């Protein structure tokens, strides 16, 4: 469990960082941010990058910015930054509720939001949040910057559409309207483990009925995603146990679950139903 040798680069500006990546990516160069996934895989020698470009010293990536309609999270922002709400309103509360489910306290001090997106683990809480809220990321390279919807970014488990010379420099989460409610529920074998299934739901409550419903599931399929069939069930209806059950059933029917050591596909389907219903129940005051 000693990593293979690599050359270490520590740029201090984004410009230097993208230049370094452009130079070293063809020689198997990788970005090091929080390192909570990359470093263990290097220790196991499942990853042997020849170059590591450490962006922890890039000051301009370290911040969270709030604009009129969005929260912009830089690539250096740690999970722990969200322990307390980073912005007033539903989004800040949502993020601080979800963050406690990410691994363990020490890991949250190092791991980053953007790193989770770049890693694209199917059970990543931040991938679920970003997919459910239709977040966009900014990918930066020597060629310039471009925006990519998170739904376009994550191709499949552990696989993204980032070009090899692109750094995922920030993610943009839309702020949630005043009347937004949310609920999150996760089931895992042990506290801090990757979810076997989890769900994030948000909706606006206008005149007692559900508007703009979003029902996301993670850990169930290869990529976290919204389930349109469940959202249709909820749209325009009053929240009720029966309605939530119907939405959960729609998810169970629509999902195409994975099977692995910890959970069979059938079991994951059952879990998907349960986590969606429980997330919806948690959305109630």
């Amino acid at each position, binding site marked *: *469990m*000693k990593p*293979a*040798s690599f050359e270490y680069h520590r740029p201090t500006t984004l410009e230097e960082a993208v230049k370094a990546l452009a130079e070293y990516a063809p020689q198997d160069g990788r970005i090091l941010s929080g390192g909570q996934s990359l470093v*263990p895989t290097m220790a*196991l*020698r499942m990853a042997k990058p020849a170059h590591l470009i450490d962006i922890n010293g890039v000051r301009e990536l370290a911040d969270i910015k709030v604009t009129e309609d969005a929260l912009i999270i830089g690539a250096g922002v740690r999970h722990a930054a969200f322990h307390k709400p980073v912005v007033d309103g539903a989004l800040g509360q949502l993020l601080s509720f979800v963050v406690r489910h990410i691994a363990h306290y020490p890991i949250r001090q190092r791991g980053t939001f953007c790193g989770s997106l770049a890693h694209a683990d199917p059970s990543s809480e931040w991938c679920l949040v970003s997919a459910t809220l239709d977040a966009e990321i900014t990918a930066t390279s020597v060629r310039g910057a471009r925006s990519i919807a998170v739904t376009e970014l994550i191709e499949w488990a552990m696989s993204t559409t980032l070009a090899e010379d692109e750094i995922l420099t920030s993610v943009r989460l839309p702020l949630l309207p005043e009347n937004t409610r949310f609920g999150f529920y996760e*089931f895992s*074998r*042990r*506290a*801090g*483990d*990757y979810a*076997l299934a989890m769900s994030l739901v948000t909706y606006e409550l206008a005149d007692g009925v559900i508007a703009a419903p979003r029902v996301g599931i993670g850990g169930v399929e290869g990529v976290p995603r919204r389930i349109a069939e469940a959202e249709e069930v909820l749209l325009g209806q009053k929240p009720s146990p029966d309605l939530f059950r119907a939405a959960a059933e729609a998810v169970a029917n629509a999902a195409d679950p994975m099977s692995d*050591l*910890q*959970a*069979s596909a059938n*079991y994951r389907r*059952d*879990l998907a*139903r*349960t986590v969606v219903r429980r997330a919806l129940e948690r959305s109630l005051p």
Partner: protein
Amino acid sequence: MAFIGRSVPRLEDRPLVTGKGRFAADVSFPHQLHMRVVRSPQAHGRILAIGTSAALGLPGVVAVWTAGDVSDIPPIDFRMTKIEGLEPYRQHILATDHVRYVGEPVAVVFAEDPYIAEDAADLVEVGIEELPVITAADGPVGIFAGTASTEPAQVRKGYGDVEAAFKSATHVVELDLSTGRHSAVPMETRGALGRYDASKDVLEMYGAAKVPHWNRDQVARMLKRSPSQVHFYEGHVGGGFGVRGELYPEDVLVCAAALRLGRPVKWIEDRREHLIAANHSRQQRHKIRAAIDATGKIIGIENEFFHDQGAYVRTHAATVPDLSAAMVLGPYHVPHYRTLGHIRLTNKTPCGTYRAPGRFETTFVRERLMDAIAARVGITPVEARRRNLIGKDEMPFERPIDALGTHVVYDSGDYAGLLDKSLRKVGWDELQMSIEARRAAGELVGAGIGMFVEKSGLGPYDGVKIAVDVGGKVEVITGAASVGQGVETVIAQICADTLGVDYTAVRVVHGQTDRIDNGMGAFASRVTAMTGEATRIAALKVKAKALDMAADLMQAAAADLEIVDGRVTAASGAKASIALGDVARHLLPVSRTRGEREPGLSAEGWFFSDHMNYPYGVHVAVVRIDAETGDVAIEKYLVAYDVGRAINPMLVEGQIVGGFAQGLGGAMFEELSYDERGEPLSVTFADYLIPTAHEVPSIDVLVTEDAPSPLNHLGVKGAGEGGTNAVGAAIAAAIDDALGLPGAVTQLPITPDRVKQMVVRRADFAASGIVQKPLS
């Protein structure tokens, strides 16, 4: 002041909690080399070629060995429970012609630093022709090598007339039960450092644990040295649990390399290696049948089981199947018994013992059987047990079978008494009422019990040397080992009380083969009973010698003197006294007052025992099931354990709580899984789930001393394994009870996925109108 029976703080703790511990990885010597093991990527195959030239070409690499380089070193022998026919299945320190599990050492690299060693190991090319893989121990018998089959031996035990028992039975209850493959994962992985001291012609090995003397003897034999030319040193050990400290290929390799390369050689296991290279355990399938009468009394038991030994037979030989065959009957009357255990080789990591070996497995099996008997005759599980328990007045109770080569005689016990105490402690009757009420409200909640007899205090001997120096400090040297369980404290307490000194004045030296010639080590919950008694005997001799000397000095009769807090005083209360250190000074070789006495305030004590002793316990679990996720919450858990006499109750409780956590792992979380090609799937802590502080509930512990062992003066029985023993059994019973489906749990670990399937089955039963009433 009495120290025995008091929860005095551990003598071991100061260095450990101040970061001054010295574990295997903390030992280093100048000019040391680092060893990295190249392991088989295939579960079964013929080695075609191993290319080492690229690795040897890497700067910093000193040597690369394959089997041909160590062909003069014999395979690792058996330490325990050797039965006929196992020799061809021993493991060589490097794979010879075939590889038989993923992780088998095929080559070793020695380099200037551990990074280079690992780089070089990656460059070793291993060409293997794949052969068919056997991953199940209960399938057809295959070929191990040549004419040797994958079933090298069977374990048969029994007595009485089993055919007649089944003929006369009113009911026959039959179960098919399995325990999952898992093992100990100590915080400290294995480590070994070999060093040849040419100035003294002594080979040294650091990182020894558990059985340093036996391992010393084996390494001496394998490397053709005399035992007195080999010293093993035990440092701090970060957990043993059966796995750590057995003699493994890596231990022999660092010693051989230190001799041949003339430099110290260090090897520290990494976690992935640990999960594929250190002993696995526990994987067994039992087909068990009980013949019972109309009242639920057992007439006979027939037990066939398949023991998955993995790819080779290691140091424990047949220990686990032997204990499985011998201990499955537990605390019950079984007039007729027959067992057939199949020892099977598979293409998976070789197996050994893990805390409560053969008992965690068979307590699950037996207690499942008791619950099934209760369900069959329509009595409560508690009543089914009561009707079959061996009585207090029947002690000592002899079973006409043997375990680990000793005759099984339950030395003492009040099984029904402890059951009563346990049920009282948890408030069993009120518990049943509250469970009833909660079920009526729709909750899936239930309670289960598991009873068991443990074994401890394995002989055949222990010897200690005690010496008091002129400063009054007492040194106890023992061949026992410490794997972190509190040996120093407990032995010091026994020595202190016997001799009449403070326990903090006693220093216990263990696991150092250059300080004492013989030692049995630490396993089978043996140390407090065996080493403790040897310590008491030696301390009595030292005391007699001190009083004899002091009698001269104080002009009193030895019989009128006593030792209190390190000073010899007159029992009459006369003020004159003499410090033990001063008595030691008078016994120095140069002393004129010594007279004809042997020099030194010191003595040896030996204790021999042909029989094990048998502690016993009860576990009670209360669980709640989340019907939707299959998640099981443990609401309450009690471990009641009779240890005969608790030298240090705090340490006994600690053993029980820690043991419970490991039992819980095996019951609900930990499983070393393989795919059909024999590829291990649980090679990191992301996939091998150890219960953490979140998952381990706080438990109730009831330590009793109702049945002291008649086999040693203090009445001590071992405390190490009772916390682990019945966790699978009790939780399985509680889950059955919560579901109202007797016999639902047939397999450990009980994962949420599996529980969810039981919940679905329950719903199917309910839909078909067959709803079984819970029987607890």
